[in-house]
């Protein structure tokens, strides 16, 4: 496995603060950041990548905290899924529900939102709820801090707006102002990469819908046409299955799925329509039970 010749020289950087981390990254552009390792280490173990150097983010206490910012929550990029589920389910129910479906307990104890974003897999479960709520990504380099709206973050399959030398430090997610849903289709209730997934946020203050579609396109998508669906706000009881089905159709139409090992494009569209209609029924019922509006 490892050669027994001359001891290999390599870098493993363990910064203790973000400014030190970005400086190290600028000085050692070959160093690959590692957070939970749940994406990176699979690639390393299978020799898909052999980093000459790595930059450990798990020692950065700043990245492992979340803070209440009033209308939103700023989640450090290194907060593992297990803590998002355990600590943020009330204020960010959609994201917490998605976090709960990731992998297994072992994966959720290590895997982070920062890693999910940097990997930018169209199947990543973090993306749909971030899109549905209009989150923003904070990226830091030696040149300073940028804030990237989530809608501008995904550029292609496993390609994002993150530039070389930048680290994701946090994601700021608006607090829920109404019920939220996350639905994921897979072969089992645990340990599955989504065949497709759907996140929905109902904003009762602005009477708007936010959507996020996963695993049904080259990038995570929103469904703007579906978000524009006319809902019977003044007479909630007029909501019916036909409206939910129309919403499902519009979400399915926004998807750009392909056939792959996990499912066909046709199946994905069908499943998304079902999930979206179900999600809308659920949030609508929850909203009007809860508030009596």
């Amino acid at each position, binding site marked *: 496995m490892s050669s027994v010749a001359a001891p290999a020289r*390599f870098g493993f950087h363990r910064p203790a603060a973000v400014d030190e981390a970005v400086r190290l990254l600028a000085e050692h552009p070959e160093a690959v950041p590692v957070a939970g390792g749940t994406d*990176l*280490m699979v690639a390393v*173990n299978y020799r898909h990548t052999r980093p000459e150097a790595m930059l450990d983010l798990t020692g950065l206490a700043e990245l492992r905290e979340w803070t209440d910012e009033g209308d939103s929550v700023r989640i450090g990029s290194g907060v593992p899924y297990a803590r998002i589920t355990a600590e943020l389910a009330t204020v960010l129910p959609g994201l917490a529900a998605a976090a709960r479906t990731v992998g297994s307990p072992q*994966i959720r104890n290590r895997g982070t939102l920062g890693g999910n974003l940097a990997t930018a897999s169209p199947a990543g479960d973090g993306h749909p709820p971030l899109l549905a709520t209009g989150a923003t990504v904070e990226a830091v380099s030696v040149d300073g801090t940028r804030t990237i709206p989530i809608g501008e973050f995904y550029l292609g399959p496993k390609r994002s707006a993150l530039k070389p030398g930048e680290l994701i430090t946090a994601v700021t997610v608006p607090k829920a102002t109404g019920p939220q849903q996350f639905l994921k289709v897979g072969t089992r209730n645990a340990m599955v990469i989504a065949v497709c997934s759907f996140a929905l946020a109902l904003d009762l203050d602005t009477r708007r819908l936010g959507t996020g579609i996963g695993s049904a396109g080259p990038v995570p998508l929103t469904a703007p046409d579906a978000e524009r669906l006319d809902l019977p706000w003044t007479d909630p009881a007029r909501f019916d299955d036909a409206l939910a089905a129309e919403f499902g159709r519009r979400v399915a139409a926004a998807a750009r799925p392909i056939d792959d090992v996990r499912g066909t494009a046709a199946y994905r569209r069908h499943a998304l329509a079902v999930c979206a209609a179900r999600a809308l029924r659920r949030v609508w019922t929850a909203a009007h039970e809860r508030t009596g509006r």
Partner: protein
Amino acid sequence: MRVTMHVDGAETAAEIDRPGESLLSTLRDRLGLTGSKNACEQGECGSCTVLLDGAPVCACLVATAQCEGREVKTVVGAVPRPVRDAFVQCGAVQCGFCTPGLLVSVADLLDREPDPTDPEIREALAGNLCRCTGYEKIIDAVHTAAAALAGEPR
């Protein structure tokens, strides 16, 4: 590069020669601690489960160099005797390959939740695959272990 960590209570140093060496490789191949099993190296099977600073993780997905100064507990240091005995007593072990990882996950579960329900057990063990037992006897063993631990002063 030298990494020092606490493994099953003992301060342990390992010399690694690449940044991406996994904790699982280091435990097994460098330190001779073969309790944690290697079956997939991709986080899917849980046979390498260890407690890292108290939380169950897949040792195959942790870079050893991330463990400087940290506490690692394998099946040797993480598992109370009654949990192990319950697995034996209930027939929850066949080939045994999944057992060390399962024992670590069960020890963690019972530490957090002394009397778990079946759904709680299934959720906690979702990341530990077993090809032999069909899981029912593992679930029996968790209940048996919970009862045994409840009966003895902790």
